[in-house]
């Protein structure tokens, strides 16, 4: 079968007339460069599995402030970033799917979902040959008692603090919440709340501009 890849960066009230040529070129450049980088990665003998390729592409999208995830994520009503991610494979993992939610200090939530998927296989079917994530977790577990929490086991959807502790256990990069902040998203957050206060619409969507819906 011919290998394939497709990526997306969000959908919503993205009107042609409200997008400037510069903005269009920014999105175009980001999407195409991330796509082509992922395509090139797929030819790398170590990155051949679709799990590696898809999560590689999403990590790049998370690091790009144009898109509503990771750096550049939207704010809740309280002005907090709460991130979510998921990964699912059609064949080869007993665990099949993982979701993580309520994350505030993880730089790349998709890597946590990926590590949980791999780790789950160790718990469900005793498969210990899981690659670097599992090995790092074992090392971290040994030398930091705080990380000696039960592993993700067969769990599929994990929220908040426990998920963040697991991320540390797997050696994933944690950041200060301020890393996720971008002025553009903050302005959208403030504008929405003000609009709602003045009864000019609700705070999560606008007919005039693209407000990320997730």
């Amino acid at each position: 079968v011919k290998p394939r890849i497709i990526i997306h960066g969000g959908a919503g009230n993205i009107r042609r007339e409200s997008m400037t040529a510069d903005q269009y070129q920014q999105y175009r450049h980001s999407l195409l460069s991330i796509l082509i980088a992922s395509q090139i990665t797929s030819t790398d003998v170590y990155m051949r599995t679709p799990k590696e390729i898809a999560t590689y592409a999403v990590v790049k999208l998370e690091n790009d402030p144009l898109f509503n995830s990771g750096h550049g994520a939207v704010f809740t009503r309280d002005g907090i970033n709460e991130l979510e991610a998921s990964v699912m494979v059609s064949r080869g993992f007993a665990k099949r799917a993982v979701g993580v939610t309520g994350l505030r200090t993880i730089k790349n939530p998709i890597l946590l979902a990926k590590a949980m998927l791999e780790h789950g296989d160790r718990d469900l079917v005793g498969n210990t040959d899981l690659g670097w994530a599992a090995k790092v977790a074992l090392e971290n577990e040994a030398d930091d008692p705080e990380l000696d929490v039960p592993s993700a086991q067969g769990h599929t959807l994990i929220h908040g603090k426990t998920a963040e502790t697991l991320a540390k256990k797997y050696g994933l990069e944690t950041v200060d919440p301020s890393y996720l902040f971008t002025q553009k998203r903050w302005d959208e957050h403030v504008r929405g709340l003000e609009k709602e206060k003045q009864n000019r619409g609700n705070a999560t969507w606008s007919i005039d501009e693209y407000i990320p819906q997730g």
Partner: protein
Amino acid sequence: TCGAVALDRNGVLCVATSTGGITNKLTGRIGDTPVVGAGFWAEEWSEKGDPSASRAPWGRLTEYLEMPGPIVELTSTLRNFLADCLPTPFMYNPLAPRPHPSHARGIDIEVIRSTAVSGTGNGDSFLRVAAARSVASIARWAGVSASDAVNRIAGRGGELEKSAGSRWGKTGEGEGGMIGIECVIAMNKLGTVLYSRSEILQDHNCAGMFRAWIRDDGLAEMKIWHED
């Protein structure tokens, strides 16, 4: 939200999705992205039996079986490699062996289909209709192509839009889109791949969706609007 769906040459699919959620959501609100079957789904299933009685995209399989061609015994990996070198989307592989006449009627042919989708838009609507899993279920049980199923869920007038009722276009309810990949592999009893096809899936019912993919001819394409 951002997402990616990748397919490797063994037909394995992976969908990865990440998001900050809805702007000004309640703190603690959980959207569709981490919820299995709502914002993401990947599934593989087998369809046995006579594909000649099957639905539209498999019609060509019967044609393929009828085609004359030299019988050459190659290992399935090598055949796959050769098949990928030929022009797509319809891959005719003259080097593939013709199945033994007893297979000709497709009785021993197993069709393995798989699809993976990632959703983006108002997550609460995706949750209300379990959008991602519905796409795979429609493709699997209604015998239609996955791109048709994506259209029925995320296209204009699809389930997402219907779930928003009168609020569609006013509150962002029901607004969104989906991307994905479908893969079809037909094998005979010997495990010989007779036919394989993969297709990019994408549709949205709102004004636009940021997406990019590698086309059949290997070129990268980016789109925001339907009529880009």
